């Protein structure tokens, strides 16, 4: 048989079998070593390793930084922080969605005493998918019993952790709550929006007020705990290493805590007194600012709520209770829009003087009523007849008939009253350093009424569309029900505007700005609360921009006339708030206002200026359904002024029936 070269057998070495045997022995010895090692690891010492396996990995858990303090102008904290026990959920470690996860929710809910659906809602809305072991806060300040219970039964609560966290603390509770604002965990949606970009999921951020406005300064830098966690994700050992969080910078404000507190006490007193007199007085607001610098000294709104309720996730019960109050979450000082009553008269006066409709010597307004056309009759409050008066007297005694005539004369043409109101900042957002900058309100004119009618017809009368933004106005509320729409702008509406009634809507802040502009000679400020940014240790980091202003032309002579009228109103014996300020040991300029609302008690207004070389101040106070301006708002303003100048405080209510 001839073999091809390829198939030719190379001689197999004689020792082949022996060498294969040696190779086999070597290999099986090596396998034996491994098998013995496995036996040792798994059978002889397996239990020790099983215990060790529960502490396998170091997991980074973010520690939220304490938010920077918010300080008043003297450095007293309005907002600080404290340490609280917290129950949180690491969504990644929860059992898969379904009955198992629901079981964990139910167990946890029973221990914490809340509804399990709440937990599901929180986790679904707040927790963000990996990466990030960012625990979602379920409840802060848990009871010690619940804290220990969960901590000791971690196997029953996969994905649930208990830990200590920094919690916002508001030492003054409900004082200034709406100004300071609310906190809340950043939502999944917010994470994608610019002010919150780069923030870890689950972080508590400012949602309103100063907390939101100065969020980036106050936030701080979170730290990281490197924690040994077992297979269930539960921290089991002491922290192996951590990077401490860096507290946020402090926000120093121009607010004066003493004045802020007194403001709340004063409007509270005003409400209580009004209620004794039969007025419901459900709400009030106040603003105090330095008319020369534009800095806000105090700002408040009642009903209020305990700011600490939002420092941690509020329980449904707490939240319902807050919502049950009359819009407690609304900052009425910047977003409460009202007719301002007679406090508007200085604006009417300036507008008319500028337009040449009146002069200092013009006297008019005799009689208790004036009639325009054939049907529209407007009367002084209580039917008083002041006779024919000049402008200063008209302001001092708040003579409506004088201003009705002005309003009628100013109707149409260049709308001088509206022009003056716009110039002094009404009808546009004040631009204060709070989210939204403050509501613009309404300075009504012919075009406004026309647009309002159109909107009303299109939206409300046509179907079930919600009431338009101007629903508060008489027109929107009644027109559909009455089956007719107000005809276009009438002279009567301008007459009402001249006395701060009708469709006029302005906030206390806007009135404070307008009066400040009159006082300081024409600077219409965008007021600021924030003053400077300080490091956690108190060093100056950044001086915040000073309040900006828009300068308007203000005739000195006209201004002097108005100031004379305001001074007379407060401190001359015929003045409307003389009973309140006649005995006040300092010079003040103030104007009462009583805004009439259909179907409701009157709204009490007072705006006052107290000059001082170093500490000048303008205060605007309003009490909803609190009665006459002199009865509720003026004495409240006096309490605040007494506080500001360190004078004895007492309630000095006026008896004036004047608007």
């Amino acid at each position, binding site marked *: 048989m001839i073999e091809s070269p390829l198939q030719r057998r*190379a001689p197999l070495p004689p020792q082949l079998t022996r060498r294969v045997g040696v190779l086999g022995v070597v290999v099986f010895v090596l396998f034996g*070593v*491994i098998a013995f090692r496995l036996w040792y690891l*798994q059978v002889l010492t397996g239990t020790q390793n099983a215990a060790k396996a529960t502490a396998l990995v170091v997991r980074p858990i973010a520690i939220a930084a304490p938010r920077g303090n918010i300080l008043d102008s003297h450095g007293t904290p309005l907002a600080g922080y404290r340490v609280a026990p917290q129950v949180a959920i690491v969504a990644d470690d929860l059992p898969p969605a379904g009955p198992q996860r629901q079981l964990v929710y139910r167990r946890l809910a029973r221990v914490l005493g809340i509804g399990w659906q709440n937990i599901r809602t929180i986790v679904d809305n707040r927790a963000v998918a990996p990466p990030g072991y960012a625990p979602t806060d379920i409840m802060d300040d848990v009871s010690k019993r619940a804290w220990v219970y969960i901590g000791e039964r971690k196997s029953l609560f996969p994905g649930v952790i208990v830990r200590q966290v920094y919690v916002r603390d508001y030492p003054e509770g409900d004082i200034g709550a709406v100004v300071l604002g609310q906190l809340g965990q950043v939502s999944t949606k917010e994470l994608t929006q610019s002010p919150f970009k780069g923030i870890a999921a689950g972080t508590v951020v400012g949602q309103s007020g100063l907390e939101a406005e100065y969020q980036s300064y106050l936030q701080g830098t979170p730290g990281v705990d490197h924690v040994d966690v077992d297979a269930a994700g539960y921290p089991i050992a002491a922290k*192996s290493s951590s990077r401490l969080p860096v507290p946020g910078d402090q926000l120093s404000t121009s607010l004066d805590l003493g004045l802020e507190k007194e403001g709340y006490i004063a409007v509270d007193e005003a409400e209580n007194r009004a209620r004794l007199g039969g007025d419901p007085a459900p709400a009030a607001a106040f603003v105090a600012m330095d008319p020369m610098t534009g800095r806000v000294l105090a700002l408040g709104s009642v009903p209020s709520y305990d700011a600490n309720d939002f420092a941690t996730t509020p329980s449904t019960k707490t939240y319902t209770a807050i919502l049950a109050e009359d819009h407690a979450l609304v900052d009425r000082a910047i977003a409460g829009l009202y007719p301002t009553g007679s406090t508007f008269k200085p604006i009417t006066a300036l507008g008319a003087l500028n337009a040449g409709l009146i002069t200092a010597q013009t006297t008019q307004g005799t009689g208790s009523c004036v009639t325009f056309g054939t049907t529209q009759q407007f009367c002084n409050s209580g039917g008083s007849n002041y006779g024919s008066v000049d402008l200063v007297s008209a302001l001092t005694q708040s003579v409506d008939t004088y201003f009705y005539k002005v309003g009628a004369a100013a109707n149409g043409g260049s709308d001088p009253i509206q022009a003056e109101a716009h110039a002094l900042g009404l009808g546009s957002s004040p631009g204060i350093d709070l989210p939204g900058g403050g509501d613009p309100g309404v300075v009504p004119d012919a075009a406004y009424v026309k647009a309002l009618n159109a909107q009303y017809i299109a939206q409300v009368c046509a179907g079930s569309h919600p009431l338009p933004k101007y629903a508060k106005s008489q027109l929107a509320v009644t027109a559909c029900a009455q089956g007719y729409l107000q005809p276009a702008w009438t002279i009567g509406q301008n007459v009402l505007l001249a006395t701060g009634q009708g469709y006029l809507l302005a906030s206390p802040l806007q009135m404070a700005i307008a009066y400040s502009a009159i006082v300081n000679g024409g600077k219409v400020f965008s007021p600021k609360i924030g003053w400077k940014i300080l490091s956690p240790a108190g060093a100056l980091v950044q001086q915040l921009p000073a309040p900006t202003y828009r300068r308007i032309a203000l005739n000195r002579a006209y201004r002097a006339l108005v100031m004379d009228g305001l001074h007379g109103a407060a401190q001359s014996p015929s003045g409307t708030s003389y009973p309140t300020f006649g005995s006040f040991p300092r010079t003040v300029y103030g104007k009462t206002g009583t805004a009439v609302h259909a179907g409701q008690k009157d709204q009490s207004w007072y705006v006052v200026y107290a000059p001082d070389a170093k500490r000048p101040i303008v205060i605007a106070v309003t009490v909803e359904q609190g009665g006459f301006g002199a009865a509720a708002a003026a004495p409240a303003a006096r309490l605040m002024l007494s506080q500001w100048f360190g004078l004895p405080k007492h309630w000095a209510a006026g008896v004036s029936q004047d608007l």
Partner: protein
Amino acid sequence: MSTNIIHTPQQGRDPATLAPRSIRIGLDPILTAAAIGLGIASLVTLGGISHAQMVRQGGYLAVGLLAMLVLSRFDYSRLRELKWGLYVILIAAILVVLAVGKSIGGISTRSIGISVFSFQASELGKVLLIVFLAAFVVDSSRKTSGRQLVARVMLLALVPTMLVIGEPDLGSGLVYVAAAFAVLYIAGVEAKYLAAVLALGVAALALVLIAGPLIGFHTYQAERLTAFLDPGAVPARDISSALYQQQNSLTAIGAGQKFGLGSVATSTAANFVPLNTTDFIFAALAERFGFAGAAFVLSLYALIIWRTLRIVAGAKNLFGALIAAGIVAMLAFQVFVNVGVAVDILPVTGVTLPLLSYGGSSVLTTFLALGLLQSIHAQARIAAGTKGRVLSF
């Protein structure tokens, strides 16, 4: 004399039917069953970690099995004439990897899978080198002395080995050395020359570990060796350290105990053990199925090695015996080193566990090796059948 038979077959009889049926099937049943068993073990283990990887591994195994079946039908002896072609492919592939992989700084391109090609080249190179060395030894053994043969084989094996270690893939380089050693040993080279080969391997290692860092080579092998020899020298919490991998692997294996943690084997499943589907898959297996499961899988490897040794002894020619010897060394070395690393008796050396580790090239390479074994087995049966020889071992 046989020309007549070949050219004029008997009427009505297909020449193919002349051979007994069992020879036509040709597969070693135990070897095949053990390989399939390991494939199933791989799928079950991966299933507890990553469904997606399990599905892909299933595909790799199917393709590999097919490749083994196809290869088993060819006569491996034809590869002898292609030996230089195989060698050129081997070197070229590794060089390409070096050129591409060099640019990716700091980390071994192989183990993190940035360059899939890198992985493939060094894995496939194992089989290519074994076939080449076997052919070279067979063709040279009658012309050259033992000393010359060893010197040439050393030189030829050293080139790809050093290149692969430079990749850096120390594990594959060591497999090359082990395979070359086995080929020479079975070829009957005198013991003193083999001692020289061993010295060469040690020198190569020393070059990488000591001289390597001096000329800017990656130093992770040195770090791993330090970590292995002196655990205190490496910070235990450093997740990237070799010690961390090995310690967590050790703990996971220990936690498996006798019968395993089953579906609650979370340490490996949760990726607490890095590379839990490739280099450290044995840890995942041992945690889930305990000593029982680990011992069962080791038994399957032992079966494969027993059958391969049997194929070495029964091969119809020296070429087949040497290929089988290289493969036995390759498989045994990989199993020993991979499991040895997992159980902390060897320093971390990135070697895959044949058929168990997730990865297409590793699976395919192993099945190609098994296909060669099946071919050697089948050819031996055919040769024995035509000569009336009876195989027994």
